[in-house]
């Protein structure tokens, strides 16, 4: 039996039609404040350990540290990251660690005591829905200085709403 000539092209078109997926609806990521990334390091920076010890809720702080101390430094989809004290030692890749920034050789309780949560919030006081990873050269193990206000402070909890971030070695 002979098939009409249009059958094969029609089948091909059907297959191609089935293969085309609808692109997901993209919601625009909110813009970060233009002045967020600083070009020079702010003065009077103190270590994470020092700031956590002395700062009170609502205090303006300048806090220096390293993006270290957790397997997941950045929250995907939110302007939040973990800042660790300089004293937290990152693992070395030659030790067989694929994620040296998790500092898995340091006990987790010690890491938590020497870490702070940094977030960039919107007008509603909630973290902006955009990841900071790769923005302003921010990445794991980078040395940074953060200027901001302590927004949560209780036993074991230390959250800073950042207004300025200086990334050492970054091109802001």
């Amino acid at each position, binding site marked *: 039996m002979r098939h009409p000539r249009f059958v094969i092209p029609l089948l091909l078109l059907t297959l191609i039609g089935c293969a085309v997926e609808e692109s997901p609806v993209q919601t625009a990521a909110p813009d970060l404040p233009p002045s967020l990334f600083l070009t020079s390091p702010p003065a009077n920076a103190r270590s994470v350990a020092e700031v956590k010890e002395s700062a009170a809720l609502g205090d303006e702080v300048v806090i220096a540290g390293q993006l270290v101390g*957790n*397997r*997941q430094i950045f*929250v*995907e*989809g*939110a302007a*939040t*990251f*973990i800042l660790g004290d300089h004293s937290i030692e990152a693992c070395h890749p030659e030790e067989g660690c694929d994620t040296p920034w998790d500092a898995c050789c340091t006990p*987790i309780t010690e890491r*938590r005591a020497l*870490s*702070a*949560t940094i*977030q960039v919030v919107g007008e509603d006081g*909630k*973290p902006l*829905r955009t990841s900071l990873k790769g923005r302003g050269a921010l990445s794991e193990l980078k040395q940074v200085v953060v200027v901001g206000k302590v927004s*949560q402070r209780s*036993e*074991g*909890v*230390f*959250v800073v709403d950042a207004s300025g971030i200086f990334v050492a070695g970054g091109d802001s």
Partner: protein
Amino acid sequence: MRGLPFDYATRNLGRSPGRLAGALVGSTLVTLLVIASASFIRGMGASLDPPAGNSNVIFLGAGSEESVERSEIRMQAADVVGTISGLRTRLGQPFISPEVHIGLAVRTDPAVPEGRLTPLRGVRPSAFLVHSEVQITEGRAPVAGANELLVGGLVSGQLGVPDARLGLGEVLHIDGREWRIVGRMRAPRTVIDAEIWIPLTDLQVIAQRDNLSCVIATLVPGEADITDAEILAAQRLDLELAVMTESEYYATLSRFYAPVRAMVLATALLVALGGILGGLNTMVAAFASRVREVGTLQVIGYPRRAIILSFLQESWIISSCGALVAGALGWAVLDGVAVRFSMGAFGLIVDAPVLAIGVGAGLGLGLLGALPPTIHCLRLPVGQALKS
């Protein structure tokens, strides 16, 4: 093309009852083996899949993302999770379930020195909100402090006892104490079906722990998502939380068990292959003995294609009957049967895809069983075929 009448194929079936019975039993067994193998793989896979349409997130201990049994988080975590805006609620009750997961030896007979390792889940009543797939089919939920249990549908298979042994009012022995079954539950095609649920505080007492394994919460899609949960985990560094969607958790679990599944698949394929070769042997023997008949048909004037088609019809009638019998048997006997494995038990699943695989294998056997011997018979010179 002059074809052989369909009657020829059907009447031939009755010519040798012994041969027919052999082929029928062979094809039934092969199809049953394939159905059993496919239902095993499907059952194991389904038990590691999260329930469809699930918007649950799991808070675990950081570093224990691969195993909820190893995870430990503070009791306080449940209250902290409650601060997420966008949690599902019903009549003001948030969908938050603090849980303890642990495997313990459970004995049905106190005289038996060692019990069987069975997954136990310590829960509060809110667990029934979060795990909407769970249905209490008999009795009621257990009450804390009264040594009561709620038992899943596959636990009898896990413990190796008849299902009636786990009826309401029956007693199980855990940690040297008697626990009365006050309810039966079903959560088909999930790991919960092989679990025993026990009030959270009771399990904490047994396990001598004052913390949780995890907190499971249900989010309202559009109002909250995994990012909200991750922000909370990042803000509450003191709780040392890791968070993932239930789908991600089960995907991780599934990856962990991938080598086991591969091994099971390989074993199932070998079993099915063995069955197919055995069945093939029976079918080939049945058709190869008909050399003279093939020669006669050629002398009468039937073309080779007509003879092949008639033999295939005959073979497919037998294998179809075998496949139907096997399908009915598999569905009636195998569906839901509990199989023990390291993390509990799962039920064999005999559903449409599994039956289709079984029937397909049966029909394939019919084709492979008839075609080579028929072609072999047809290759012989007609004279030689008539003399054989």
